[in-house]
């Protein structure tokens, strides 16, 4: 069985049915996209690790009504990328996954310094790319000049 199908099966057991969107055409570059509740995140990521996926990137996104954090995971076989999405309010702290994927140690540091997300139980949240005494969070849309700042529904709806 391809790893992609294996992970779909495992995620379907954890997550509610309508949370998973499959895309066999690979139109947006992922085979599967799942909206994950914050309390299910660690469980879902642990399943990915067990199947053997690697963590590609953690991306933060700022909307007027909260943040979205996207975890991209992949496996060394054709078209196997999946994305897990977590939505949380400004100032909320989603759990860390750095004990499951070591790569998340740096990716979470990066999201923290850019979006002011303090991942719960992350052992090391020093600044990574910014100066160590930086007291600003540059990727928040309230920082600097940006073209637009919208609600999540306006972009995804």
């Amino acid at each position, binding site marked *: 069985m391809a790893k992609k199908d294996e992970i779909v099966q495992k995620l379907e057991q954890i997550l509610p049915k309508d949370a998973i969107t499959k895309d066999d055409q690979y139109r947006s570059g992922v085979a599967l996209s799942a909206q994950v509740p914050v309390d299910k995140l660690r469980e879902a990521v642990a399943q990915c690790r067990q199947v053997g996926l*690697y963590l590609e*990137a953690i*991306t933060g996104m700022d909307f007027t009504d909260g943040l979205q954090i996207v975890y*991209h995971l992949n496996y*060394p076989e054709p078209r196997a990328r999946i994305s897990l999405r977590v939505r949380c309010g400004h100032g909320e702290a989603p759990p860390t996954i750095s004990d499951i994927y070591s790569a998340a*140690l740096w990716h979470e540091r990066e999201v923290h310094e850019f979006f002011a997300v303090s991942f719960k139980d992350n052992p090391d949240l020093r600044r990574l790319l910014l100066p160590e005494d930086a007291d600003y969070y540059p990727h928040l849309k309230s920082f600097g000049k940006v073209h637009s700042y919208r609600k999540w529904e306006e*972009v995804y709806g």
Partner: protein
Amino acid sequence: MASLIQEPVDDRIYSLNLGPQHPSTHGVLRVLLKLDGEYIVDADPVIGYGHRGHEKMAENRTYEQFMPNACRMDYLSGLIYNHGYCLAVEKLAGIEVPERARYIRTICAELNRISSHLLWFGAYVMDLGGFTPFLYAFDDRENILDILDRVSGSRLTYSYCRFGGVARDIDEQFITATRAFIARLRSRWSDYHNLVTKNVIFINRVRNIGVITTDQAQRFGVTGPSLRACGFAYDMRKAEPYEIYDRFDFEIPMETASDAEARYLVRLREMEQSCRIIEQALDQLPAGPYRNDKVPFKVKPPKGEVYFSFESARGQTGFYLLSDGTSYPYRLRARVPSFSNLHVLVEVFKGTLVADAVSILGSIDIVVPEVDR
């Protein structure tokens, strides 16, 4: 009082700064090493000296205006980044690209891959103390720079691709020069192997040094030649064929030793595969327009997102674009391979000699401005 000002000193552990100005770090990378004698007990890469905020810049620029930024992240394979960014936007906006342009882009991207690997080859051997191969590699690389300079106008940060094509058409002289270069490079392989690959000093510096286990590669998300040296024939050009890579007959070089020598061999063989791709592309090169004239002045992709992944010289790279329907990206994220490939060194460095750390750092082939973005 002194104990308040000074941190307690463990007289057995010695702290050493590798960089930020060390010649072997290829850019401003600083690695804070904790040493027990000659052995490394802990390593902490300190990055961000070259952080320019490309991702933030994108939110205040139109898709066209961001074009020169893409090739400045990884300045050694700038054309591949430029190409990848164009492909990502074209996929998001649904822009058609003429056949001839797709061939031209592929040829130029593969030439850029060879030039990046040649520079790495020369610089790596120089890190290990051999000066002559560096000059050989730069002599060869200069040919590529001349070829690409003629069509794109720049030698390093090529902004040659456009949405729906390329900036300028190639001519007969380009084709003749490229074919001559490939013939010349092929005649050099035996020199390279005799000078470096079979050199006992080189072998002693790379064999069984810096082994990345499969588990480490998976936990840290290592990709590119470093992953292919661990026994995974994983390359975006085959795994998610983009542009026209599915039309060519080429192989993904693979090694299983996972050490610095394996990574060296993978890269050397990759150059030969790039030569094969270029030759086939030149043979099949169709006539026709080199640019889609119907692309609007301001590209306005519909609402939605795309994660476009491609293979740069250093590994799997991705542009993640989120569009809110305007001509400015709502969010642009660049997934860069060197970031993950450098992070794994935190574990690989443990227990090795300082002298080997230089060899391992070189074998990973990081580009620091790409890590810092």
